[in-house]
């Protein structure tokens, strides 16, 4: 019996039509546009000025807060401008524009193909190199990786899980990375495990990728024969089921532990990192190469040239699309990411980010929503919800504006995976409604928490004032 997570989930067709497409480097565009909001958390602060010459891998922005990350130039050339530019949704983001001149890399970057398997003794050094490399979670959330590797005091990591599920249909860049750069990914995983205090590491890979499972097992066997730092790494084959790559679902599947509502994975002793993040870690720690390029799946039944391409961060989407034959005639929507959680692209002139994992082209027949009809109370949304919520109920409460009941029915736990909307036979836009309700409820919860905190502080101050008064 193969493992999987315990509640809900769906089985959309995996549509991995680009699975045989090896990762090929894409030409460098004439100009790149590197956003300073590449990650969750505070935007980075630019450290270059207009007119500066930069090299590939040079720092162009530094962290703008604790949860933030370095950003490096992905090209060599001249900084043309620093200012707002529209992202893929059309919202302005601070962006560094660099005109490309040649392809001159920083000398410190090791560009040899040799695999460096020796793991540094000091875990802190690994974390620091990850921080300096500007590495963020590449599974979708782009959370700064070094922050995840510094567990808060009192919590202890027991296992590192490398997320190789790639449970979103269509996407294959993680799969290709496992097949083509498996050695580097395994070393990267060992580095992260070391940084976490030498914890055991498990690769979670879905069973629809048997080649990747066999390949990684082989590499682990080979590496652990000569170096015992690799003996604690294993591969777990998981049943195919969406959203297995969700952090909470993957921990449940691999460790049979459920992260509590509002809790972090570390609260059950787990840290999850994506395959591409492990590769980026390898490059940053062993090769001094910061994160400035990533692989992107270009796919969709209507897209003429299925591909996995390695692109420099900041490459305009239109440049990638045009170099692969342009937008197909019958495509009506371009999705950045997978079809379940990806974001629809409104602006094809937007540039890639570190976390851009794929561009998916969908036809009207594939993606245009049908008109919603009455709820027939079939309960499929509740069966599909991996968080055990009742989307039909949340929708009703949201339409009634009952915030207290929404909170009591755990709307804040929604991970926005889309299983409810996907499975509704009446085409009811469940997630659209729940997403808005969740935002409202979270706002209320945060306001209440802030108020409680302010009240507690005021009481404390009053008590102290009273104390000093009576003393005086």
């Amino acid at each position: 019996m193969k493992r999987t997570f315990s509640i809900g989930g769906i089985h959309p067709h995996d549509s991995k039509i680009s699975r045989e497409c090896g990762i090929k480097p894409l030409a460098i565009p004439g100009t790149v546009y590197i956003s300073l909001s590449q990650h969750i958390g505070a935007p980075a602060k630019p450290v270059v000025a207009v007119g500066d010459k930069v090299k590939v891998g040079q720092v162009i922005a530094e962290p703008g807060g604790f949860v933030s990350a370095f950003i490096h130039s992905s090209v060599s050339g001249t900084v043309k401008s620093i200012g707002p530019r529209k992202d893929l949704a059309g919202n302005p983001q601070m962006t560094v524009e660099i005109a490309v001149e040649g392809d001159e890399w920083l000398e410190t970057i090791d560009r040899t193909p040799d695999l460096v398997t020796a793991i540094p003794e000091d875990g802190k050094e690994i974390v620091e190199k990850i921080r300096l490399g500007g590495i963020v979670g590449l599974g979708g959330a782009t959370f700064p990786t070094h922050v995840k590797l510094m567990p808060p005091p009192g919590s202890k990591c027991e296992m590192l899980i490398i997320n190789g599920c790639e449970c979103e249909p269509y996407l294959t860049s993680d799969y290709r990375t496992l097949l083509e750069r498996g050695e580097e990914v395994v070393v990267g995983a060992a580095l992260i495990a070391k940084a976490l205090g030498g914890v055991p590491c498990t690769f979670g890979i879905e069973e629809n990728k048997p080649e990747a499972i066999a390949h990684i097992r082989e590499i682990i066997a080979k590496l652990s024969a000569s170096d015992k730092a690799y003996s604690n790494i294993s591969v777990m084959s998981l049943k195919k089921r969406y959203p297995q790559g969700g952090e909470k679902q993957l921990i449940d599947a691999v460790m049979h532990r459920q992260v509590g509502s509002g809790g972090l994975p570390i609260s059950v002793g787990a840290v999850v990192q994506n395959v591409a993040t492990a590769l980026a870690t390898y490059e940053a720690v062993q090769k001094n190469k910061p994160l400035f390029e990533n692989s992107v799946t270009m796919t969709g039944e209507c897209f003429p040239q299925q591909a996995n391409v390695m692109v420099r961060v900041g490459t305009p989407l239109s440049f990638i699309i045009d170099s692969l034959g342009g937008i197909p005639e019958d495509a009506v929507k371009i999705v950045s990411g997978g079809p379940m959680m990806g974001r629809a692209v409104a602006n094809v002139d937007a540039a890639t980010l570190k976390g851009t994992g794929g561009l998916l082209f969908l036809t009207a027949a594939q993606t245009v929503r049908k008109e919603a009809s009455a709820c027939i109370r079939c309960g499929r949304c509740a069966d599909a919800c991996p968080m055990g919520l009742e989307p039909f109920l949340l929708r009703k409460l949201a339409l009634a504006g009952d915030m207290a009941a929404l909170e009591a029915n755990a709307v804040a736990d929604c991970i926005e995976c889309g299983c409810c909307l996907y499975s509704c036979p009446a085409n009811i836009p469940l997630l659209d409604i729940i997403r808005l309700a969740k935002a409202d409820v979270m706002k209320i919860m945060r306001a209440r928490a802030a108020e409680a905190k302010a009240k507690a502080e005021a009481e404390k101050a009053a008590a102290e004032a009273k104390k000093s008064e009576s003393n005086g």
Partner: protein
Amino acid sequence: MGKLLVTPSPHIHTKDSTRSLMLDVVIALLPAVIVSVVFYGWRELMLLGVSVGACLLLEWAVTRFMLKKPSTIGDLSAVITGILLALNVPYTTPWWVIAIGAVFAIGVAKMTFGGIGQNIFNPAIAGRVFLLVSFPTYMTTWSQPQGLFGLDAITGATPLGAVKEGLLAGSSVQDIMAAGGYDYATMLYANLGGSAGEACAIALLAGFVYLLCRRVIKPWITLSIFATVALTSLIFWGINPARFTDPLFNLLTGGLILGACFMATDYVTSPMSAWGGVVFGVGIGFLTMMIRYFGSYPEGVSFAILIMNAFVPLINMAFHQKKFGRK
């Protein structure tokens, strides 16, 4: 390629629709429909036609002229109501009686509540019970069928009716069974003389298995009805076999299989959760047996389902999904 479409995720959708699910139920009912026409002849086919036609016409007319909304007959739910209603009456029922039943089922039990998804009571059962209390003579005149190949009609009691009458007359269950000559093996495939849809247990169960395989319904409601009927009758029969009928007899007679497989499992009028479904099924099974043993009607499946339909909102409030990472 004109303007780009920008909508929130998810960007793909299951192929299942209300219509495809309802179509699966219609397909699942086909074996029972075919068997009933073979057993009871063209007259049964006429009843099915009148019933389905009246249900569709009424739903169309109500949405078109009263609610002034787009018609919902395309979702096929009215077709299911029509088929179930026709399968739930004797084949001798006059066409105008079943048309009145359809008016009640769709007009009163379904559309007054707001149409599909809003009704509290299963429309087909509501229609059947309405006919049972309004036209008791037509609804309890059971005739042995002519079939497609012709036989003279003989009026007779159903096994459940015979038991009820026999007990009232002072006979013991054993004597009644011996006099009726009921053979359980035959009842499995040719249970004649009752409502048309009750004729063939195997045809009904085949449809039920089809629905399970297609993942249209889950088995918990149906299985808990069967289990409760079997267990309740086992206890009573064990205590006094002269007064109470045995479990197998109760599982095979009357509308139990039809009701448990196709009417108690109606999405709209059954609980959403698995455990809620079990409670619902246990309630139906127990009430059915209480009516059969102690009520004045020989059969109680329809009443039991209607009564439990009324409890569904309460059951839904009591049973929730197990939430991830919460106690």
